[in-house]
């Protein structure tokens, strides 16, 4: 059994993060965008876990818990916003919500 190189864990995190980013950029559906944000947050969490594992310290996991907390709060508020938006604009198109343009 080989030792897993730390870089690999971080590469996994970056790949997932990039995928989430791509999704965030190409999607117009706001729920998809929310999902993408979750993916990106999760990827960030992976990076913390990898780092924690490398130094054999619990701090990485503590950070993950904080991220988790934040993600949960974000999803709840974000979904509430999506509900409001859908109620007002009758669409999930994020481009429709452009009343704040300059």
């Amino acid at each position, binding site marked *: *059994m080989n*030792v*897993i*190189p*730390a*870089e*690999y*864990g971080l*590469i*996994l995190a*970056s*790949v*997932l993060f*990039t*995928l989430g*980013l*791509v999704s965030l*950029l*190409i*999607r117009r*559906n706001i*729920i*998809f965008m*929310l*999902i*993408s944000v*979750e*993916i990106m947050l*999760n990827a960030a*969490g*992976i990076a913390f*876990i*990898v780092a*924690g*594992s490398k*130094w*054999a310290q*619990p*701090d*990485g*996991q*503590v950070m*993950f*818990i*904080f991220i*988790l*907390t*934040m*993600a*949960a*709060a974000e999803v*709840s*508020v974000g*979904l*509430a916003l999506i*509900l*409001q938006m*859908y109620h007002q604009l009758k669409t*999930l*198109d994020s481009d429709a919500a452009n009343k704040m343009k300059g």
Partner: protein
Amino acid sequence: MAIIFYMASAIAVIATVMVITRHNLVHALLYLVVSFLAVAIVFYVLGAPFIAVLEIIIYAGAIVVLLIFVIMMLNLRQESVAQEKQWFSGKIIIGPLILASILLVEMLYILTSGEPAGLSENMIEAKAVGMSLYGPYVLGVELSGILLMSGIVGAYHLGRQKKKVTHRFLEKKEE
């Protein structure tokens, strides 16, 4: 153990790719669950069993369920899938893909340019996490509490059905 890590990583990446290419929201969510589960395995392999469990319970469980609830509430029909297809055209993808790949290449470059180091295989028990969580990070815990609290209040407040109100400035313009 390493082979499990590689497999789980591969599954996570493939599942995530599937998530971001689906037109149907529910399908995408199912792949998302798969992705989260794979990541949970990765966590377990990296010696974070407590986190692996949390990942399953909260991400794959709570958050995804929340999303599904919302989708159900919105009562999306088949048209939304069609519309999603229409929005998901090839032309829009190119730009973000190029940008994202540049970003990825740069990140990979940075990650691989350092000294290679192995990961320890020691398990970090939930107790150690708990000790440090309520030890040095207690302030962060309390802040998280406040965050969750405000998240709940905010979600409740925003989620209420209100009359359609437009801002007075916009109202004037519309007249």
